[in-house]
């Protein structure tokens, strides 16, 4: 096992997949000469040249659509959004073109394209730069959504996403790029989409989450242990496809669950998963499933307000106490 940052893990995944398949190319703002705004593509320009690592103009709609066209014609584009906040400009091409092409053409045009970049809040980037965008991509059939929270997951899932024949919104976290962790040395380490990962085992309550929130969940689980509460922490890793069996298994075990996510509550990922739990595991539930989310406001700039707005381990602990009727 090598220890590396989340950034390095993504970089390795890109390098390995580009070496493996000449049809894979990376396009986005600042990905080449600048090594990426967050340095995820460091060194790739030198290694693969400017036909495969391409700096784009600031034209999100245009280069996202260019990627979709290239995928129709047989390439496997990796389109980097500097952050998903900017992808609102491109979402027409993701939903109306990429997610529907295979269906509208009755299978004539697979869409092996990855749209990747950070989602969610970093530090004090304010309302327009701090959105968790999962819901905009999970809602429509035809698009897969992947949200790795560790370096190993980042590497294994990005490789899987690039090899997948469907469009994948691959959502990273700006605050995760420097996060270090162990990554298997296996030079072809791929994690299949649709497999959740139990990041911590407990029997009293299930904390279910995805993306960078797994770290908040683990923090909460640590605090809870001090009160003698043992929590399962289930990391969904991919939210479409969704590992429903793993969700139902932890709920069947603990009979109590909290969904933690970084984004807004209304029609968030948690809403979907909570409604599925009550639908498919109604009799397993000893308490309602609660959700912990960002405060239901645009992200404020002020440090103290931002801290209040973000979901915290204490919020999770509070919700866990509620579902345990403590």
């Amino acid at each position, binding site marked *: 096992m090598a220890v590396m940052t989340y950034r390095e893990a993504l970089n390795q995944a890109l390098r390995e997949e580009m070496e493996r398949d000449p049809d894979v*190319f990376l396009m986005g703002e600042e990905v080449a000469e600048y090594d990426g705004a967050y340095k995820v593509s460091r060194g790739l320009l030198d290694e693969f040249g400017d*036909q495969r690592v391409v700096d*784009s*103009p600031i*034209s999100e*709609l*245009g*280069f*996202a*659509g*260019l*990627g*979709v*066209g*290239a*995928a*129709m*014609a*047989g*390439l496997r*584009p990796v389109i980097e959004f500097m952050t998903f906040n900017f992808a609102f400009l491109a979402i*027409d*091409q993701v939903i*109306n*073109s990429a997610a529907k*092409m*295979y*269906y*509208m*053409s*009755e*299978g*004539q*045009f*697979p*869409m*092996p394209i990855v749209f990747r970049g950070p989602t969610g809040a970093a530090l004090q980037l304010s309302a327009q730069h701090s959105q968790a965008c999962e819901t905009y991509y999970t809602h429509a*059939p*035809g698009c*897969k959504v992947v949200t790795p929270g560790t370096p190993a997951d980042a590497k294994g899932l990005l490789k899987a996403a690039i090899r*997948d*024949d*469907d469009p994948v919104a691959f959502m990273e976290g700006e605050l995760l790029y420097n996060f270090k962790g162990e990554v298997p040395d296996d030079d072809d380490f791929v994690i*299949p*989409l*649709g*497999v959740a990962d139990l990041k911590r085992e407990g029997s009293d309550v299930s904390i279910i989450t995805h993306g960078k929130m797994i770290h908040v969940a683990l923090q909460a689980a640590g605090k809870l242990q001090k009160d003698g509460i043992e929590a399962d922490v289930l990391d969904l890793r*991919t939210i*479409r*496809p*969704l*590992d*429903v069996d793993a969700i139902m298994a932890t709920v069947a075990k603990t009979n109590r669950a909290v969904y933690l996510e970084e984004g807004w509550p209304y029609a968030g990922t948690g809403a*979907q998963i909570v409604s*599925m739990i009550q*639908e498919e595991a109604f009799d397993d539930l000893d308490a309602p499933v609660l959700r912990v989310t960002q405060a239901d406001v645009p992200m404020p700039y002020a440090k103290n307000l931002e801290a209040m707005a973000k979901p915290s381990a204490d919020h999770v602990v509070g919700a866990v106490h509620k579902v345990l009727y403590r």
Partner: protein
Amino acid sequence: MAETKTMAKKPSRKDDPLQEHGISPELALDLMRDMLAYRRFEEKAEEAYAIGKIGGFCHLHIGQEAAAAGSIKPLREDDYVVSAYREHTQALAKGVSANAVMAELYGRSGGSSGGKGGSMHIFDEKTRFMGGHGIVGGQVPLATGIGWKVKYRGEDSIVLVFMGDAAVNQGAFHESLNMAAVWQLPVVYVVENNAYGMGTAFTRVSRTDMVTKSSPHGVPGRSVDGQDVLATYAFFRDLAAEVRGGAGPQFVDLQTYRFRGHSMSDPVSGTYRSVEEVEKAKSEQDPIALLRDTLFAGGYLDQAGLDEMDREARQTSQEAADFADTSPVPGPEALYRNVWAEVNPNGRLFFDGRER
């Protein structure tokens, strides 16, 4: 813009337009056959729509046949064509069978997309007809990406993308032309300029001429008379060669006119254009009549020959309608088929809780 002039409407014809444009009699007759086939196909679709065999939005190309034949016929099989929702005849021109297109309009399993795409979404991978797209301007970045692939692979295909005059006001158009210019992609951006976007005259939503729209991107723009199929063919034949030779992206203002309403649900004329305007265009600018006159004048075709061609065209479209009519509707299993190209072994992809 020197070329704009020479290409503009009503080029001073020499005695024989065929010679002027370097077009053989055989080719000219083929173009007549093609345009007749498109006209009769669309008329058949119109009929079928009227009796409810075709549903949804249906945008006819009647009046614009020369634009399709003249621009697509010069292409190679391995060239790509991308279009919007007024694309039936363009698909035919690229080689998609009339049966497959008509069956798609009927929503039948024999259609080019198995009946799941419909009138606005004709796709055919074999002939490289890349759709059939419903969001105004949405096909323009796609074509740019197809051009990217051609350059990426070092191939010598070219890409022809069609859009309406209203589409140039979409940001996607400008973003695409800029990228195509920066990367010198082999894409020809063709505006089928029929002067109206639905009920809006282009002059009401632009202060400048169409041909100028590519100027800030460094993409050359030229105009051509899209009702004159010989001029249009010659223009695209030469342009395709230039682009194949590495001339980079091009912009074309292909001037034409729509003889029908915007879609089957819209009036042919109204506040936005007068009956007289439409009738005048039909009598003076019908691309089929214009070619007929040329061919008659040159002695390449006579009425009997034309009638025979027309009989064939009507027969083809009738056969297409019969094929569509007898093609089975998609089976229920088609509903969930091809949502995903890869149904991962793990995890759930469908969430409606229905039986599949």
